[in-house]
């Protein structure tokens, strides 16, 4: 049964495809990040010049990293807070749990492009819901050209990201809370733990593994972020909403600077790996406290 041929037969296709399309290209990206390379001329080794250029001469790179960090921190705060809060509400003694779960979750399954275009309309200065709503409640002074102003555009996009993925954060917490054995809660209630104390000393410690999962998902998702920015602003106005993936896309496939694009991709890769590692370490340390 465990003949060499059968193992090869079952393993080879997946192995080859994965190696050719995922593994080798990563190595190639790292390799070519040390080269000056565009479509016109052959690759030329330039050491760390691409990386030095990024931090010293590329203002859009700096803006992109700042936006990325802003997006990451804001998403973590908003999604973790509202996702957890909704999960606590939904798992409490109420009717219509399934309905509410689905209402908050549905944006996570539809295309970010569709979500982005829908919100572009909502933010539209002339006919959009947001300005219309502000007029309705008499706050015309707060009306803005949301996506067309540098001061508001990044906030506008970040709120859409949270709108789309709060439901995702929520269902993971719902699953985790429902996995907690009922009698643990009952005995805690008998001991007098209610409301906030119950959540603080029972629920949060017990769903800790999921706090970590959500933390990694939101962070890595924010670092890789591209779709909504492309759909809503393409990085504008004046690159004020550019993120690293957007910048990498423009440099590589609009300006065909392959070597520099690879260097940007490598920075993104390192950031994702470091973030995952740091979050894992943080939570390992926290685990031992209990």
């Amino acid at each position: 049964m465990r003949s060499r041929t059968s193992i090869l037969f079952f393993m080879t296709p997946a192995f080859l495809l994965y190696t050719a399309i995922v593994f080798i290209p990563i190595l190639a990206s790292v390799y070519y990040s040390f080269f000056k390379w565009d479509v016109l001329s052959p690759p030329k080794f330039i050491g760390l010049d691409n990386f030095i250029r990024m931090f010293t001469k590329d203002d859009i790179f700096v803006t992109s990293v700042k936006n990325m960090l802003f997006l990451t921190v804001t998403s973590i705060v908003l999604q973790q807070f509202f996702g957890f809060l909704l999960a606590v509400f939904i798992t409490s003694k109420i009717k219509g749990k399934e309905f509410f779960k689905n209402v908050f979750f549905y944006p996570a399954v539809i295309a970010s492009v569709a979500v982005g275009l829908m919100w572009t309309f909502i933010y539209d200065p002339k006919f959009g819901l947001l300005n219309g709503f502000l007029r309705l409640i008499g706050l015309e002074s707060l009306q803005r050209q949301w996506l067309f102003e540098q001061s508001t555009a990044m906030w506008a996009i970040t709120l859409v990201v949270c709108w789309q993925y709060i439901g995702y954060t929520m269902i993971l917490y719902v699953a985790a809370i429902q996995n907690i054995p009922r009698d643990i809660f009952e005995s805690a209630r008998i001991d007098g733990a209610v409301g906030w104390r119950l959540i603080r000393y029972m629920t949060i410690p017990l769903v800790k593994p999921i706090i970590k999962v959500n933390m990694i998902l939101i962070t890595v998702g924010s670092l890789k972020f591209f779709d909504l920015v492309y759909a809503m602003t393409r990085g504008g106005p004046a690159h004020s909403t550019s993120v690293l993936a957007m910048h990498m896309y423009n440099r590589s496939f609009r300006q065909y600077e392959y070597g520099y694009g690879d260097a940007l991709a490598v920075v993104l890769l390192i950031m994702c790996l470091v973030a995952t590692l740091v979050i894992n370490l943080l939570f390992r340390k926290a685990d031992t406290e209990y």
Partner: protein
Amino acid sequence: MSSITMTNKSRLTVGQLVIYALLIIGSLFYLYPLFWLLINSLKQTPEIFSNPWALPERWIWENYPDAWTTGNVSRYVVNSIILTGTSLVVVLLLSSMAAFALTQLKWKLSKLTLLYFLIGFMVPVHATLIPLFVYFTRFNLVDSQLGLGLIYSSFGLPLAVLVLCGFLSAIPRELLEAAVIDGSSVYGLYWRIVLPVSKPALMTVTILSFVSVWNELLLALIFLTDQSKFTLPVGLTRFSDLYVTDYAPMFAAIVIATIPTLILFAIFNKRVLAGMAEGAIKG
């Protein structure tokens, strides 16, 4: 004391009322935009400007055929279906074969091989784009559904292999041994026993792959340059260039892009929620 318990059972507590109120307000943030999208897709563009809040004066269904044919949405939908179908078949077949080998035909390096696949989790797709694009151009795989489908499948493999390995390692050994005693070959074992048994896990993989491939933008943007090959997400981003001032068909196009996914979500709802939660936690 007893009277308090009575009210708890028979009527809503203040706490519950607050929770209901907050959940309903929250729901409005999620349902109203969708409703607004729908009503505006049934108006003419001038009416969207003059009266964005109201129901349409006259229901204009023409926006839909307009988006569908003139806006090329029909083309994009077909392309997306072909691409998603191709990717699903490849990822289901290859990952189930690999998971079968990894869990049932264990060999010396099977643990290491699984770890090798798991590297794929940590890696953003961006880190492969340029080399892939250069190779694909050389082998004439740009603008090819199969080419892009293979990329989607490869990036779907790590999660698919992991989900299936988790499921397959729980299959009782007796089941497989009995089949071997009955004279089944290892290939028959895979095809007639393992595949049918792992249906729930295959379903999870299908849902996860569908959601990611059907909605994917970045890769499709890079690897499809010919407009007749565009997928729905890429097509939608081009739609705004085509209908610069004529918003009504664009509202319709967004509805067309959104509704099928929502219907599928409504049908497979429980499985989608469970599957996506499982996928996220495994990842």
